[in-house]
């Protein structure tokens, strides 16, 4: 019998704990498939965040280290400086990467730290139950913005890709989404490029994935995917923000 599809070796057999309709599962699989296809699973060292993906170390089939809130890029820096020829990646949410860990993120990028960051932006704090994230949209209702996010009291959402792409040390920065098959396929390509940038020792790479949180958004999985497309994508345009890989061609 011909095998037409099988589970990637990049994931363990541990069942995901994620809520129904959450896109973490898709992104996990894309990252895992990418590492398998690039043949780097045996030399990959991942850093798990705090937040919904806190158990990422249970899922990726490679060595893993669990970091404190926001510190994943610093932990990854330490690992990479010890093992410059290994493949080091972080997997972080918006609260982790764009609030408590902003300094770690910006400076890892500024140093051109040769690591890959997978950034899950679902515009809300998931694990703590739905509070405002730095990426929550203007007007978005959350537990801590019950009347909607207002710029005058809560400030503006942070566009990480736009911000980091201004830094010399950033090698590959792209924003993708996973709300339909076409976008999932494109996200896979982006993640692969990010890992290739690291393999080619180009510097810091980050893929921002606009993701869903049906539970904390109070929507059905389908409505949530539609919300990414209709609302999030308007404020966070998809696309490649920086690509030093192209310069090689």
């Amino acid at each position, binding site marked *: 019998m011909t095998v037409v599809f099988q589970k990637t070796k990049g994931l*363990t057999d541990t069942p995901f704990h994620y809520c129904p309709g959450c896109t973490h599962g898709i992104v996990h699989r894309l990252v895992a498939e990418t590492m398998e296809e690039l043949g780097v*699973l*045996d*030399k*990959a*060292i991942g*850093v*798990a965040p705090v937040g919904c993906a*806190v158990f990422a*170390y249970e899922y990726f*089939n*490679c*060595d*893993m*280290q*669990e*970091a*404190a809130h926001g*510190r994943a890029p*610093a*932990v*990854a*820096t*330490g*690992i*990479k*400086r*010890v*093992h410059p020829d*290994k*493949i080091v990646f972080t997997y972080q949410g918006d609260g982790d990467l764009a609030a408590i860990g902003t*300094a*770690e993120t*910006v*400076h890892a990028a500024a140093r051109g730290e040769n690591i890959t960051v997978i950034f899950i932006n679902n515009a809300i704090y998931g694990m703590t139950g739905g509070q405002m994230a730095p990426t929550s949209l203007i007007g978005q209702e959350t537990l801590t913005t019950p009347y909607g996010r207002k710029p005058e009291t809560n400030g503006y959402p942070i566009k990480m890709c736009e911000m980091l792409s201004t830094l010399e040390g950033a090698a590959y920065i792209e924003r993708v989404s996973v709300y339909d098959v076409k976008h999932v396929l494109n996200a896979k390509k982006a993640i692969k490029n990010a890992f290739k940038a690291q393999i080619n020792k180009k510097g810091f790479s980050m893929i921002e994935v606009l993701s869903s949180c049906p539970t904390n958004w109070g929507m059905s999985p389908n409505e949530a995917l539609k919300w990414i497309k209709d609302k999030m994508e308007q404020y966070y345009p998809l696309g490649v923000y920086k690509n030093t890989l192209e310069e090689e061609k």
Partner: protein
Amino acid sequence: MAKVLMKGNEALAEAAIQAGCRHYFGYPITPQNEVTAYMAKRMPEVGGVFLQAESEVSAINMVYGAGGAGARVLITSSSPGISLMQEGISYIAGAEVPCVIANIMRGGPGLGGIQPSQSDYFQATKGGGHGDYKLIVLAPSTIQEMAELVQQAFHIADKYRNPVMILGDGMLGQMMEPVDFDILKKEENKIEEKPWATTGKGTRNKRNIINSLELDPQILEKHNIEIFKKYQKAAKEEVRYEMTNCEEAEIILVAYGTIARVAKNAIEIAKRENIKVGLIRPISLWPFPEEPFKKTKDHVKAYLTIEMSMGQMIEDVKIAVNGQKEVYFYGRVGGMVPEPMAILEEIKKIRGKK
């Protein structure tokens, strides 16, 4: 190599390199800046990594990553910087990653000053970060001893898979003394395999995971008990102290670090006045040495703890003495250093008491 004249901070850095440390992450803060400068120059010469982080918070997490990845790794800072590192230190202890942390203390609280102090004793020995954990804390009193203890610290950190802290003060960091690196214990510099480290799976069957998260209370309790067994072992095997003139002493001074040297001067002056004074100098602050107090409590009139703080180590001294003798305190703070004559005055006051 003959003796070389070095600043305490430089000796600390050189001793780490000679102990096989090839990764240093730090952030400048006075009075330990010579370490960062020394490492920036020396690490490239030995094929090592010097990285100036964007903050102490980042630096300690780089240490967590590098230590987890199997390297001998050093971080140094001074009081306010060490406060910022507490989150990372708790994680490192929880995840059982070895590393060496040096705190070259300055006055506090808050921004405080840049002059020497010993007011981080509680933070170093009682926790500082959240959760049940212990650091093994070593306090040198000379620059030679600084070099020796740094090397032992790497060995102890690996042995227990736990952070070890070198607790010095600004005076020790800034003063110059001759150091002989040849007499250091070379066998402790041998780095053993770390099969638990995140090095990439390679041909290993099992993935290595470095982690401090346990949501199941029963498993977390088990983890806490396991790491405390380790601390109990350290409490037996890593006790270090020095006793000077204690045999016939009527008053025994208790002091650590540079102030123990001032205390020794006070003892000499007292001797000229026919007052018999001894000194117990804890070298390991955790585990705190209790034996010298057991050995001396029968013949001494009282203990006098001397610190550059408002009185922190005195609590451990009182526990060790266990109410069997009086324990007095003399201290200066804010960067002021107790003087021998002032200590002598305190000794005389105690002698005058019935």
